[in-house]
């Protein structure tokens, strides 16, 4: 089974520029997550999709971050305009559809390392 794919792996931009990240989840996984991991911190959830609908975006800075998951498969996360504090690794994860049980293993991609200068 192929894992979660992400691209690009690395990105360097100037502040105030825009950037987009792409994620392809594991085939058949209905739930997709985007996390932000700042150096020395644990991942923080930005947004969760169930199929192509948003389940939780309470921690997404909506003035500059946006995400979409068209057709319930691939997803893109965009930052516009970027700030210095957005420098982090952006992780995508996916899991199977929830059936009422809480525990639900999330499989992570390798992440995109963003540096904002």
């Amino acid at each position, binding site marked *: 089974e192929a894992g*979660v794919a992400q691209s690009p792996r690395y990105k360097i931009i100037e502040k105030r520029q825009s950037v987009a990240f792409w994620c392809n989840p594991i085939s058949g996984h209905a*739930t997709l997550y985007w996390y932000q991991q700042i150096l*020395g*911190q*644990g*991942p*923080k*959830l930005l947004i*969760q999709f*169930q199929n192509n609908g948003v*389940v*939780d975006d309470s921690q997404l800075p909506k003035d500059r971050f946006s995400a979409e998951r068209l057709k319930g498969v691939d997803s893109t996360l965009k930052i516009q305009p970027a700030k210095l504090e957005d420098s982090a690794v952006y*992780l995508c*994860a996916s*899991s199977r559809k*929830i059936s*009422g*049980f*809480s*525990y*639900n*293993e*999330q*499989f*992570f*991609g*390798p*992440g995109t*390392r963003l540096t904002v200068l």
Partner: protein
Amino acid sequence: QKEVEQDPGPLSVPEGAIVSLNCTYSNSAFQYFMWYRQYSRKGPELLMYTYSSGNKEDGRFTAQVDKSSKYISLFIRDSQPSDSATYLCAMEPIYSGAGSYQLTFGKGTKLSVIP
């Protein structure tokens, strides 16, 4: 006080040592407790998960949960250089039916096992 506290280390041990990694938490709603391993420049991968209090063993790894103390541990026996990584604890409350499964992670402990 953060919901999940984890000593970031770094922790350096000789090969063959027993390693103890710990997290404390404040949210009583947490019911699922996970340990993830993250190698440098990779995404986290699930190592073990436990539900509620008790111990769970998988090979050289033992996860322990003490809900009365709000304290979880991961023990690694006969540590190997290949165990060198950052270990993240993560926790999740019981599914509320609202559709959101928010994992709360600790900061991670960076472990180095020296040959």
